[in-house]
């Protein structure tokens, strides 16, 4: 069991990896300041808050993406319903700081406004790719965080 009172080389390396990974999320535009806001809300009474919120997003968002896909396939097209579904996804995504997803949702909404079904289809494929990438990156990030243990979870880490 790791003795966190005397940081080991492995622990220091892990912390460096975590810091670097998180910075890359911001630098590459996957996350924005809202993610830092979530970390500000995390404390000793809710040490896994950020991971729990992200897990909830990753649990709910596939259902929304699936509903969007089903609605695109319906005839006649229901752009009002599509806009409503994407609005939900945009809201949830922006709550966790998922800026690329949020931006693609805005593109999708613009296509809905223009009643451009082909545009909606293309945008949906992009949203699904962004979602898959974000999921993979955040799951790796939290896996690393769990390795450093409760001390890292309870301490706010800013960008």
């Amino acid at each position, binding site marked *: 069991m790791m003795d966190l009172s005397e940081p080991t080389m492995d622990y220091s390396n892990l912390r460096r990896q975590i810091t670097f990974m998180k910075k890359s999320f911001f630098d590459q535009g996957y996350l924005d300041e809202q993610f830092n806001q979530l970390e500000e*809300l995390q404390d000793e009474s809710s040490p896994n808050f950020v991971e729990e919120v992200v897990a909830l997003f990753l649990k709910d968002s596939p259902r929304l993406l699936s509903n969007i896909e089903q609605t695109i396939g319906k005839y006649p097209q229901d752009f009002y319903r599509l806009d409503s579904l994407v609005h*939900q996804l*945009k*809201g*949830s995504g922006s709550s966790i700081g998922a800026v690329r997803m949020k931006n693609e949702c805005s593109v999708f909404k613009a296509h809905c406004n223009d009643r451009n079904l082909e545009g909606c289809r293309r945008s949906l494929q992009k949203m699904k790719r962004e979602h898959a990438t974000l999921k993979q990156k955040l799951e790796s990030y939290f896996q690393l965080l769990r390795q450093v243990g409760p001390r890292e979870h309870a301490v706010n880490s800013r960008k």
Partner: protein
Amino acid sequence: MASSLKALLVDDMSVERMVVSSMLRKFHCEITLAKNGKEAVDMFLEGNEFDIVVCDKDMPIMTGPEAIVKIRAMGATDVKIVGVSADDNAMEAFMGAGADDFVPKPVRPEILQPMVQEVINKK
């Protein structure tokens, strides 16, 4: 902040309920959740009292503004109602319905906190 306010949080999205709940909890609020405007209205019909309502706009069954109109019509004129939305046109809809304030989404704690503090100061 010593006082505990009774807050009603109304949002159909679970992620947003979780995030805003956490903020309100940090502001020492006792939180009740509703998933749409109708559930919020039902809370008031059942005789529950709240110091502050934080309410999303677009929800199934009953929207935020629709719920606010009904809540005010019931005589709940003292409760502070804050509308929240990512929709650019939401502020007008909320204020027209009888809300006291509006906060754009994603909700920032530094914007919500003074509104909560205002209610605490009045109490």
